[in-house]
């Protein structure tokens, strides 16, 4: 049986036929894509784009094996969207996908912001940026709020130096490193306009939409369940109401705000249990009450997002 199959494969190879199923399974990306699907609520356009990118990269790999030379696909990306829309999480998965497909060797993610790249004094920036680039080699360098690198109002700003080194690395070390730039959409657009070098080196622009109320509820349920808590039905309704009030407020950061709100709710639940003393059941320890939620400042017309970004 095996011999027959091998013979078949030999024939296929001779005729230039490639088994895409085998290539797909061999690359093991199905697993990562499924994980992405399961782990992230909503984000349909992002997931679609990632599938497309994965398909492109897989085909590019197979073409290369067949000797159909093409330019290497540009792997650097930009992720735009409001805070808490899952940019870092997706970047982590992206690193895994790129590793499975053999485009980066290690598949780790190094997160950097302006502080990690730009120095305090003359001559401080280059070694700092170089250090970060070296750490990210073999993986993905994720630069959060990349537009802070560029400060046009201060012409002696050291950010420009970091930008130049990054551009150089993106060009010369394409085999070693993939750069993902992330931040708010409109600010990233201005950043790209004033730094055309970045724009031309970034191949894929992914926009992360804000979550809808239903999606946020789904995220909240997921987080609650993962931490072994549960909402009762009154609490569920209260949390929905909380989100409705919270969403239009300033500093609303999507999934991150949900997580922070849940942290505060857990705190109030603990306080409530301690205040009541006496015997508690396992269910009591797990249950989040509507009262835990309704104590929030949001219901008194306040903003829960103060001090939260």
């Amino acid at each position, binding site marked *: 049986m095996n011999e027959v199959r091998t013979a078949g494969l030999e024939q296929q190879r001779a005729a230039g036929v490639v088994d895409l199923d085998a290539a797909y399974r061999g690359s093991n990306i199905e697993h990562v894509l499924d994980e992405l699907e399961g782990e992230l609520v909503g984000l349909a356009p992002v997931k679609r784009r990632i599938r497309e990118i994965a398909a492109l990269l897989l085909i590019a790999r197979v073409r290369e094996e067949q000797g159909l030379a093409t330019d290497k696909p540009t792997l650097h990306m930009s992720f735009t969207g409001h805070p808490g829309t899952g940019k870092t999480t997706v970047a982590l998965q992206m690193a895994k996908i790129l590793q499975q497909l053999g485009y980066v*060797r*290690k598949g780790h993610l190094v997160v950097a912001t302006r502080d990690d790249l730009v120095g305090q004094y003359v001559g401080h920036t280059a070694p700092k940026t170089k250090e970060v680039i070296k*750490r990210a*080699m*073999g*993986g993905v360098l994720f630069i959060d709020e990349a537009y802070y690198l560029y400060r046009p109002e201060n012409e002696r700003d050291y950010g420009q130096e970091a930008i130049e080194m990054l551009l150089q690395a993106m060009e010369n070390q394409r085999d*070693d490193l993939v750069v993902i730039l992330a931040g708010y959409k409109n600010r990233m657009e201005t950043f790209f306009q004033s730094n055309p070098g970045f724009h031309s080196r970034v191949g894929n622009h992914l926009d992360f939409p804000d979550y809808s109320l239903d999606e946020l509820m789904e995220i909240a349920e997921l987080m609650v369940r993962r931490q072994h808590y549960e909402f009762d039905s009154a609490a569920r309704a209260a949390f929905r109401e909380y989100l409705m009030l919270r969403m239009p407020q300033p500093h609303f950061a999507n999934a991150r705000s949900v997580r922070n709100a849940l942290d505060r709710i857990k705190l109030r639940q603990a306080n409530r249990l301690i205040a009541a003393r006496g015997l508690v059941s396992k269910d009591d320890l797990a249950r989040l009450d509507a009262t835990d939620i309704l104590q929030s400042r949001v219901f008194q017309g306040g903003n829960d997002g103060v001090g939260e970004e």
Partner: protein
Amino acid sequence: MRITQGTFSYLPDLTDDQIKAQIEYCLKNDWAVSVEHTDDPHPRNVYWDMWALPMFDLKDPSAIMLEVNACRKTFPHRYIKVNGYDRRYGRQTTGISFIVNRPAEEPGFRLDRQDAADRQIRYTLHPYATEKPAGQRYGESNGEPK
């Protein structure tokens, strides 16, 4: 006289790809890789100069090769070695150590005999290179890197 020491002393000098593969092996074992250089070829010279700090945080051999090449560029006429430290034992244990750069000309050693008491003979190795001050031994003009 071609000086040999360390892990692959019996082999010809490693190519860059082979060096990279060895670094990859170190990283796979979670060893911290460091680069050191010297212009004192004596075999008992164990304290080489460090080229920056051991690279605890790097995950990819290409990044370490960058440092190796930077060191080669600064000290083209010195001995440069790559070490991999295995910290599992809680003390500094060298898991691997091999030369990746050597001067173009290696003048070698002279054997010195010293007459000691009771017609005893003491032997010592005298590297010709060390007749010049450090930094000027292998075609470098002074102590400063070129």
